[in-house]
C-alpha cells in the first residue's frame, strides 16, 4: 500500500469520527450507555482503529458498510440492504466483543412522531435480520432518531434517500 491512499483512508476515518461525535447527539451521548461502553458517548471516537485492520470498527464502517437505506415510508429491507447486513452479521459474529447499537432514521418529509416510530421500525428490521443471521440479540440495542439527525441536509430526494437509513454503530463493548 502506498502512503497516499492510506493517508486518505485515515482522513476519512477521522471525518467519520467527527460525524459520530457524541456532541452531535447531545452530551447525553445519543445511545450512550451502550452495552458495556461505560455509558459515556455512544461510540468511542478514539477507538475506531486502523481501517486497514479488518477487526477494527473503522474497517467495519468503511469496508463492510455500516448503513442500509430504505424506500419512502418503508422499513422493508431491499436486496442490497440484505447483502450489506449479511456481511455485517458475518463480521459481527467473528468480532463478538463489540456492542451494537442500531440507529433508525427518517427523512425530513414526515411528522415528528411518525418519523420516530418509522425510525424504530427500520432499526428493528435490521436487528431482526442480524438475529436471523446468528448475531446474539443480547449484544444489540436499537434507537430511533426519527428525522432529528439527518446526515445530508439538502431538501431533495438525493438527500432524503441517504437520510432514510439504519446505521449499525459499534463500540468496544463487554469483553474487550
Amino acid at each position, binding site marked *: 500500500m502506498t502512503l497516499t491512499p492510506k493517508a486518505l483512508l485515515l482522513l476519512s476515518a477521522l471525518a467519520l469520527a467527527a460525524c459520530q461525535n457524541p456532541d452531535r*447527539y*447531545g452530551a447525553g451521548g445519543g445511545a450512550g450507555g451502550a452495552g458495556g461502553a461505560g455509558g459515556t458517548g455512544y461510540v468511542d471516537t478514539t477507538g475506531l482503529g486502523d481501517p486497514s485492520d479488518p477487526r477494527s470498527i473503522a474497517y467495519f464502517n468503511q469496508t463492510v458498510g455500516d448503513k442500509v437505506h430504505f424506500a419512502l415510508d418503508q422499513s422493508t429491507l431491499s436486496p442490497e440492504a440484505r447483502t450489506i447486513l449479511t456481511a455485517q452479521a458475518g463480521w459481527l459474529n467473528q468480532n463478538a466483543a463489540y456492542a451494537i447499537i442500531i440507529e433508525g432514521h427518517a427523512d425530513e418529509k414526515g411528522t415528528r412522531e411518525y418519523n420516530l416510530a418509522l425510525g424504530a421500525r427500520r432499526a428493528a428490521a435490521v436487528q431482526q435480520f442480524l438475529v436471523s443471521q446468528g448475531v446474539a440479540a443480547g449484544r444489540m440495542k436499537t434507537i430511533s432518531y426519527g428525522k432529528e439527525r439527518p446526515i445530508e441536509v439538502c431538501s431533495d430526494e438525493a438527500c432524503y434517500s441517504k437520510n432514510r437509513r439504519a446505521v449499525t454503530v459499534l463500540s468496544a463493548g463487554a469483553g474487550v
Partner: protein
Amino acid sequence: MTSPFRILSLLALALGLGAAPLTALAQDGRPPRIDITVGVIEPMPIAIPVFVDEGGAGDYAAQLSRVVASDLVGTGFFAAIPQEAHIARITSFDGGVSYPDWRAINARVLITGAVSVAGDRITVKFRAFDVENGTQIEGAALQFAGTTAGWRRMAHKVADVVYSKITGEGGYFDSRVVFVSESGPKNARAKRLAVMDYDGANVQYLTDSSAIVLAPRFSPAGDRILYTSYESGFPRITLLDVGSLRRQSLEEQQGTMTFAPRFSPDGQTVVFSLERGGNSDIYTLSLASGRLTQLTNAPSIETAPSYSPDGSQIVFESDRSGTQQIYIMPASGGEGRRISGGEGRYSTPVWSPRGDLIAFTKQNAGRFHIGVMRTDGSEERLLTASFLDEGPTWAPNGRVIMFTRESAGAGGQASLWSVDISGRNLKQITTEGPASDPAWSPLLP
C-alpha cells in the same frame, strides 16, 4: 434528579394577581360586537390611549397600553387608531369620556386604563367604552393587582376581557406556550425546552440543550410538562414540574421507546406511544397508580394520541390502511373508526378544547398543511400550505392554532406560526431563534 437550572416562577405569577370589578358607569345600548366566525372581517377601530399614571407607574403606563393594543390588533379583528390621531386626552381615569372626540376619529371602542406602582406591587384598572352608543361596555371594567414582574399578564388580562366582551369568545392572551428552542446546524440541531408568553415575550428556558427534547405538552393546570427526551441516551417520556423544574422519566421498560405523550383532561393519566420490537402502539399510564394499559394492538404505527375534552375518546393517527390516517377510539381503547377521508396523509390530530374540531397535519402532493375537520371527518378545511407545516396546538379558546413551519434546504430552520381556524391572520411568532413544537397552555388563572 436535581436540576442544574434556576427555579423559575412561571405560573406562580398567578399568586397575588387578584382581579376585582370596578364600579360600572351608566350603561345601555347595544355593545360593539364582532362575529369572528364569518370569513372576512373589517377590523373594528379601537382607541387605546396611554394608561393614566396614578402614582409611580413610570414606563408601565405606556407599556401596558402597548401590549393591550398589540394583543387586540394581533387578532386581526381590531385596528388601533394611532395615539397621535387622538383628539381627546385621558388625564383622569374617573373623569368623563368625551364621546364626540372619539367618534370624530371613528373609534368604535375606547379602552382607558390607570396604573399605580408601589414597591414591586402594581395595580392596573381599565374600562372599555362603546363610543357609538356613548356607554361603558358591561363587565369591561376591572382592577388587577400583582407584582410588577407580572405586568404583561395584566395587559393580557385586560385584552382578554375586551376580546371576550366584543367577540363573545373566550380570551387566550393570558397564556403561555411551551416549545423547543433550536440552535446549530441542521444535522446537529441542539434543542432545549422553553416557555414564553403566547406572543413570544418572556422566554424562559426549562432545560439545557445537552439532549434532544421533542414535543412538550402542558398539563391541564399548566403546572407540569410532558415531553420526549434523549437524556438517558434513548427517547423516553419525561415529566417536568414547572415550579421546581424537577424531572422524572416515565416508563423504564428495557428495550422500548416511549414518545408522543399527552395528558388526559383531568391530568391523572398520560396517553402515549410505546414502541417494542419496532411496533408502536398507544398506551395509557395512570400517574397515581402507575398502571399501564394498552389501548391499541396492531402491527401498524399508532401514535399522536389526543383526548377529547370530556376525556371519553382519543383521536390518534395510524398507518394501518397503508398511509397515515386519523382515527377515533373510546378512551378505554379499541379498533377506532377512521375519520380522515381526503387525499393524502393525515397526522398529529389534536382535539379542540371546545370539542368541536380536530386540528391535524396533512401531507399531499409534496406539501404540508395545517387543517381542521369536524370530529366525524366532515368539513375539512386546510388553513396553511408550505414546504413543511406540522404539529398544531390549540389556543385555550379553540379559535387559534399555533404550529411549526420549517423552511427547506441546508439552511432550513423551524419557526412558530399561528393562524385562525378561519384561515385568516396567518403570522409568525417572534422568537429569539429557531423554534418548533409549540404547545399552548390553558388560560392562566
